[in-house]
């Protein structure tokens, strides 16, 4: 009986090379190609190489970068005042002096759109990330562990699932952010983010749980267990990459719907309040004047649509890059 540790298979030269047509032939292919092949690559490296070739990725990434800079440093884009206006300029149409015109209160729409990016994007992106993290983690735990853990987590999710979104948000926000409270801009944003995440994570959890349930019985998971892989390795290396696709798609759609949800809450008077500007607030203010001054709705809506589309396209590009079959 030979000891497996002393003799390594790989040091033993194979007795006979199997003669299979095609094997060995590409070895003589162009040198630069084979030199490139030598470099070890993994899924992420390949995904990045694939992404770099996609114009869709560059377009959406550029837009998202612009929006992020806009959110961080609005003064780079405009020197106007987003909060104060003069009533004599109420609903003045777009002109060369003010590209986007003035709103009912005589405030510059362009400045407001720029300053509104911060609240909208921060709220939408942070609550999406939180929702994905909480829901995804819960989904993996519930799906992978199964049994009573799954039952418990699923029932907890059902409780949150049963709350209608607007009702739940009203309850949370009127408790912490009712009329008469004097919360700062960031506190309100935090509260809005919290209520959005708390009320939407069950959807992500269910999505993730069903993905995990479908994947965890796969043969390659069994093979990994047979190799002696631990739970952490199976989840990170095998389950997660194969369950991420639906989550990414849903996540990018969620960014858009959260910007809209934030607007709904602002419109109800429980979300962000003046003088904080957000695209949602602008859109809900503009709807009363949609017949006489449609541009009031058009500009914030255009920014909103562009931002949402950029996130959706980015998510799509990343999802495709992460699937080797689609390359």
């Amino acid at each position, binding site marked *: *009986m*030979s000891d*497996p*540790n002393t*003799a*390594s*298979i*790989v040091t*033993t030269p*194979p*007795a*006979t*090379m*199997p003669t*299979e047509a*095609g*094997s*060995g032939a*590409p*070895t003589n292919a162009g040198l630069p190609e*084979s030199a490139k*092949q030598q*470099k*070890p*690559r*993994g*899924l992420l490296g*390949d995904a990045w190489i694939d992404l770099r070739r996609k114009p869709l990725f560059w377009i959406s990434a550029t837009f998202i970068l612009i929006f992020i800079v806009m959110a961080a440093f609005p003064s780079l884009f405009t020197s106007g005042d987003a909060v104060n206006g003069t009533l004599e300029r109420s609903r003045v149409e777009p002109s060369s002096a003010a590209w986007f015109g003035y709103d009912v209160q005589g405030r510059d729409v362009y400045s407001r759109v720029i300053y509104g990016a911060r609240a909208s994007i921060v709220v939408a992106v942070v609550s999406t990330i939180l929702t994905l993290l909480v829901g995804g983690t819960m989904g993996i735990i519930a799906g992978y562990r199964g049994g009573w853990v799954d*039952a418990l987590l699923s029932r907890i999710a059902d409780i949150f699932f049963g709350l209608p979104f607007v009702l739940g948000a009203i309850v949370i926000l009127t408790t912490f952010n009712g009329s008469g409270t004097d919360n700062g801009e960031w506190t309100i944003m935090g509260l809005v983010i919290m209520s959005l995440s708390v009320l939407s994570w069950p959807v992500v959890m269910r999505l993730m749980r069903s993905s995990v349930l479908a994947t965890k019985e*796969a*043969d*390659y998971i*069994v*093979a*990994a*267990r*047979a*190799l*002696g*892989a*631990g739970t952490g*390795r199976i989840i990170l*290396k*095998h389950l997660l*990459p*194969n369950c991420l696709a639906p989550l990414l798609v849903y996540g990018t759609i969620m960014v858009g719907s959260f910007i809209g949800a934030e607007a709904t809450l602002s419109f109800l008077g429980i979300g962000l309040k003046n003088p904080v500007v957000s695209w949602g607030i602008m859109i809900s203010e503009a709807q009363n004047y949609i017949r006489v001054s449609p541009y009031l709705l058009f500009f914030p809506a255009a920014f909103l649509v562009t931002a949402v589309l950029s996130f959706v396209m980015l998510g799509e590009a990343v999802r495709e890059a*992460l*699937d*080797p*079959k689609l390359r």
Partner: protein
Amino acid sequence: MTENIIEVRDLVKHYPVTRGVVFKKTIGHVKAVDGVSFELKAGETLGVVGESGCGKSTLARVLMNLERPTAGQVLYKGQDISKLSGGALRRLRRQIQLVMQDPYTSLNPRMTVGDLIGEPFEIHPDVAPRGSRRTKVKELLDLVGLNPEHINRYPHQFSGGQRQRIGIARALALRPEVIVCDEPVSALDVSIQAQVMNLLEKLQAEFGLSYVFIAHDLSVVRHLSDRVAVMYLGKMVEIGTEDEIYERPTHPYTQALLSAVPVPDPTLRESKAIIRLQGDVPSPVSPPSGCRFRTRCWKAQDVCAQEVPLLQIRPGSDHPSACHFAEKREIVATHEVA
């Protein structure tokens, strides 16, 4: 080469059948494997045949310690593998590896071939130092007849036979002593089956591997096996050397199986009697009393319903058979004429 590397003693694996959502009530058991014993010697190939649902794959899973047996033991060099945990279990995993049936689902679609075959080294870092892993992976690819340049490709870029070679390379990476092959060629084209089997044979000669080779194709098993075990409904009905099973079968079920093997020679085909079994395989939840095969057996008598036939050497035979009326029967099913 006569020491037993794996010994299976009265192995039983039952899966509970439950009813109810919150308060689960066990209403029965699927008796997937019900009292199986055999031993595997170092360097030999034990073929396990049987039709779908007879417990072959469950047997493989228990052998791999992926499932805990309900009763009985699997001994690896005298050590009960189901009692191992932690570091000891990890060391055992290095010695027993698995090649799975379906090469299309047994490879993670989002890992490159290099990552797939290199994964065993990452799980067992003491086998190969970090720097040498890439070279080892390439050597393994070369060993199973794949182009080492394809290390950065993904499984979907390979054909079924090539994928199965990747699976074999992954199983070989840790230099195991035993490889459990769970129908490794049944998902492949016949032309590719031969390639993969020849590869398995070559690797066995090279590294002195022992195989537990599970299949439902008798000719595939004959090609590779030293000894063959025939399973029916969770029990082993006959076990013996390749010759004993294929040339002198004594159990009616083995005889029926062998009579169904197609004969390529049309002149011989005339003289061949096909035994047609009646009915279906009974449910493993409530198998028949006594001999499990009696419901479909043409020899069944009263004693078959009362007494469980033991797997033992019967008079007039040279190998164990689990039939009260075991006897030789002329079967013209030798496909290996050449």
